[in-house]
């Protein structure tokens, strides 16, 4: 009796937290200014929202097969999410849509890049991003 109560409370917590993240992501899709920043809101749904909801449902599943199916659903979401975001970002950049940037560091030299002096720049050199590759 005690055991099922604990499991029920745990599912409630997980499902409520998952629902919060799902709604947050949807609100983010509405509020964000351009297509690139909206992708970040979508990844909140894809990761935190999905995993918390699925974990909460999984605790209530009667059989092991249902749990396994939930795990497969989760795995599918994880592989779809980043691949779709990446393809979307690339297609949007290709189509000439530029994100509204606050700061553009693309012109700065990357530590370890050919023909560039990587000691000249403090931003990219501070924590040794490229020093391991030398």
């Amino acid at each position, binding site marked *: 009796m005690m055991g099922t109560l604990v499991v029920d409370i745990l599912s409630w917590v997980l499902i409520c937290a998952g629902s919060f993240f799902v709604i947050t992501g949807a609100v983010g*899709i509405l509020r964000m200014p351009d297509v690139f920043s909206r992708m970040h809101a979508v990844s909140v*749904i894809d990761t935190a929202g999905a995993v918390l909801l699925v974990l909460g449902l999984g605790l209530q599943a009667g059989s092991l097969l*249902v749990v396994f199916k*939930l795990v497969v659903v989760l795995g599918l979401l994880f592989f*779809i999410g980043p691949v*779709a975001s990446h393809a979307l970002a690339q297609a949007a950049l290709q189509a000439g849509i530029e994100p509204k940037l606050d700061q553009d560091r693309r012109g700065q030299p990357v530590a370890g890049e050919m023909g560039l002096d990587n000691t000249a720049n403090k931003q990219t050199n501070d924590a040794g991003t490229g020093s391991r590759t030398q």
Partner: protein
Amino acid sequence: MFFVATGAVLLALVLVVYRAISGPTVFDRVLAANSIGTLAILFLAALGFLTGRPEWLDIGLTYGLLNLIGTFAVLKFFRHGDLAFDVEEDGTE
């Protein structure tokens, strides 16, 4: 508790559908369509538990796979203007 999950996903779906209709660029619409797919999988899972029939998860899985292929088809079409475009054949990325 399944009511909470189903309700939350439905509310999120309404918000995302609004973005899909109003989205200024085609990529906003594709993004919204993609997250509608994700939300539909979660909705089917939650609804399956709500009605006591977890078999609905299978439908959710199929929906997810179709969603992935659909998103790629749309993106490939808008990037290359051709669904049969072969990067290796063409050489230019």
